[in-house]
């Protein structure tokens, strides 16, 4: 990781150190603020070193100032340390000076590291709001969007072969290879399905795959988009101050937004739904008797605007033969109800004026 980071830093002139409260000694190694795994890893290592330094300090502190204070092991046997301070005096003097400095140094290092760690701990755990985190996450999303655009409009021939091979390694995505680029063998399993895709869809999926690959690139994963400049510490403080003051205002006049009776309505609605659900389990006659072939349902639902839903029927991999072998996690990632809802609700509303209205009025 560190090698990569330094090379990437050299490559891009505009690399800015990632911000942190207490991990500053790591310099350019500090991960993006939304990379919590990375931050906690560094925090743990730093705290470990801090504790070690204090431990070292304590050990040195307790060591009597003699040259062989710890005792010596000779021929596999332990020679206890001597309290005789009159022999080897010169070396013990040097040693005691040495130990003194080491003591001070380890104390300073230990306390310093631990206080830094506690600062970072505050940011990561105790403060309610982290502007850096939000910013880093936003930049990642923006980069993803821009990457898709960039890869989409890039000429397809600029795809180099290595990348193509990489794509085809991925069984799911093998099909989204560029069909204009004849480097792909035509025996991919889903070939027949993909012929239905228009060239635009081809390009779209390639762009998305490339952008996704860019996202999982370890350097990007650790640092976030390389070329963005995180807000300065001053801005961070401003954002924090603003947030806290707004929170105070908000909580001071906690307006009650709920219209009276909403809670009551809610409980009755809950009960109603619950009762109705119970009825459905007990009596199936409540449900419309749909002879469940897809065509039927298609015809019926097309009358309403939910034909969009139709495209998202669950198709189970033919390999899976029984219901027990269904992987629920996989189902939820492929057919996440919340994601489906998001697709359903991303409407594009347009207002089209007409001249006819006004003319009619005239």
């Amino acid at each position, binding site marked *: 990781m560190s090698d990569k980071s330094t090379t990437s830093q050299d490559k891009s002139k505009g690399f800015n150190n990632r911000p942190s409260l207490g991990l500053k000694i790591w310099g350019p190694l500090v991960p993006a603020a939304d990379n*919590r795994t990375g931050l*906690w890893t560094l925090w*743990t290592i730093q705290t470990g070193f801090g*504790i*070690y330094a204090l*431990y070292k300090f304590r*050990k040195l502190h*307790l060591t009597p100032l003699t040259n062989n204070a710890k*005792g010596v092991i000779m021929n596999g*046997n*332990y020679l206890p*340390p001597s309290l*005789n301070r009159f022999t080897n005096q010169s070396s013990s003097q040097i040693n005691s000076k040495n130990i003194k400095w080491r003591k001070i140094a380890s104390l300073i290092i230990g306390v310093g590291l631990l206080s830094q760690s506690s600062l970072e701990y505050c940011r990561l*755990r105790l403060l*309610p*709001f982290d502007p850096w985190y*939000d910013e880093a996450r936003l930049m990642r999303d*923006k980069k993803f969007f*821009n990457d898709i*655009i960039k890869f989409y*409009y890039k000429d397809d021939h600029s795809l180099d072969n290595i990348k193509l091979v990489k794509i085809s390694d991925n069984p799911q995505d093998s099909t989204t290879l560029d069909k204009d680029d004849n480097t792909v063998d035509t025996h991919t399993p889903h070939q027949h399905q993909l012929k239905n895709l228009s060239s635009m869809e081809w390009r779209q999926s390639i762009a998305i795959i490339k952008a996704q690959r860019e996202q999982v690139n370890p350097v990007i994963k650790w640092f976030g988009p390389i070329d963005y*400049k995180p807000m300065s510490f001053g801005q961070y403080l*401003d954002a924090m101050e603003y947030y806290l003051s*707004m*929170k105070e205002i908000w909580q001071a006049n*906690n307006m009650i*937004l709920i219209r009276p009776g909403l809670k009551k*309505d*809610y409980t009755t*609605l*809950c009960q109603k739904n619950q009762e109705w*659900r119970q009825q*459905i*389990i007990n009596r*199936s006659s409540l*449900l*419309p008797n*749909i002879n*469940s072939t897809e065509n039927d*349902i298609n015809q019926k639902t097309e009358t*309403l605007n*939910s034909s969009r839903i139709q495209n998202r*029927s669950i*198709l*189970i991999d033919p390999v899976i033969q029984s*219901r027990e072998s*269904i992987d*629920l996690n996989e189902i939820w990632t492929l057919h996440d*109800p*919340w994601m489906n809802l998001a697709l359903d*609700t991303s*409407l594009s*509303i*347009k207002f*089209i*004026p*007409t*001249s006819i209205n*006004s003319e009619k*009025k005239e």
Partner: protein
Amino acid sequence: MLRGRSIIRGQQVRLPQSLIFKNKVRYFSRIQHQWNTIRGTDTMPLSPMQQQQPLQGFPPARKTDTSRWYLVMGIATLFTVGSGLYYNSGNGVLKDYAYSPKVSEYLKEAVWLESNKSNYNYSEALKYYIMALNEMPSYVNKLSDSYTRIELKIAEMLERLNMFEKSKDIYNEILNRFYITLSDKSDLGGKIKVNERAELIRKDLRILIKSLELNQDIALGKQNLLAHLLLAQEEILMKSPELKEFFDKKKERTQNLLKGQSMQLEEFQTFVNEENIKLDNEDNGLLVLNMEKNSSGWEPFKEELFVARDLYTAYCLSSKDITSALSCKMTTVEWMVMADMPPGQILLAQANLGSLFYLQAEKLEADIDQINTKTQEDPSLLDDDNIIKALRILNKNKRNCLKMTERCYDSIIDFFNKNKRLRYHMKDQLDTSIPQAIALSTYGKAITYLHEGLLPKAEGLLKDAMKLAKEADFKELIGEATKELERVESLRLQQEEQQEGESNDKTTI
């Protein structure tokens, strides 16, 4: 002596928690050790036997081992604590609970029934989803994905079975649950973390939009929209100082209006310009997001928010309240720029804004006509100062609205003409809202020409718009444009007839 020491040693092992005590013991033992050496064998080294004997119980080599062992242990615990902290940081209200074996059994059955494997048996799947929901233990938070996911599935099944009333009830239940939780702000950032709250609002808005789609009652829909939008808006206000600035400015503006200063035309600026819509660095003319702009206060629910706001605008329009639709849309576009929405969305929003300005101008014109017909009936009304003043204001506003319409459309068309990349790649735009916005503005411009009676210009633009709309696959616009073209045709025929009539008149004279 030996024994005593080993007992002390033993204590040391047994009481590792008291560090200081341990240190003292160790120090003490070391001193004792040294005393031993001084007393007995300072000058004479121990024989190997003697040396080994007292040390058998606790060789100092092991002593350093133990201290190292402590260190390793310490670091290990630190790592576990660290990783624990890390994992713990993601879990709040939205924690993803693991399903109990029974629930997951039901869910698997339901998924199986719903899928192609059982020929899409939605009614049976619905039952299993309901059973799974009934089996959910009470400790599972009803806001968590694990719970709402099943509810959404039930609603989806109901929709597929065409039972829209019932699915609406389910959505309303979730919606109210989210709303009640979110509107309680006394415990901000406590039980529900800040990021979770934003995520909840996003989900809330999604459900809101869905429930509005199923809803027929406009008044209720509007009321719901207002309440939920206010919630989202306040959330943004917490994190976005720009929005606060916006509100402060707006306050100032309304105060000025109250003082009698009307809004100047110059104050209105269009939003599509180089500053707001960023092109990529490599001069490809690609429309990208600005990486230097931090709009994190609007995340992650900005898309849902703007859809909901557009719905509100549409509701206003359907209840013929063009003025509030217009002001809502103006705010929306301004906010979209603030939130750094994708450029296509901003373009489309501005085109829509142009359309709304045009509608407003039309409405004002209708008002003027009404007054005019009244004054024609009763010429004495013209002596009334108030009416003349009103007419003047209406006329001025109408002219302003038409000007703003033009500005909105023109800036988009200019932008399109300047950007070569866009001009030559209209067909394969990734974001369909970009060509749609351009087609809509070209069409809108044609309509304004038509309004002014400039038929040839209007016709040319309409044809352009038609072509663009076909490229963008913008079916609604194609329909409207054909209608308008027919109108232009008939108008032209009328004009020609008139002209012929006039020329005939002239020749007869």
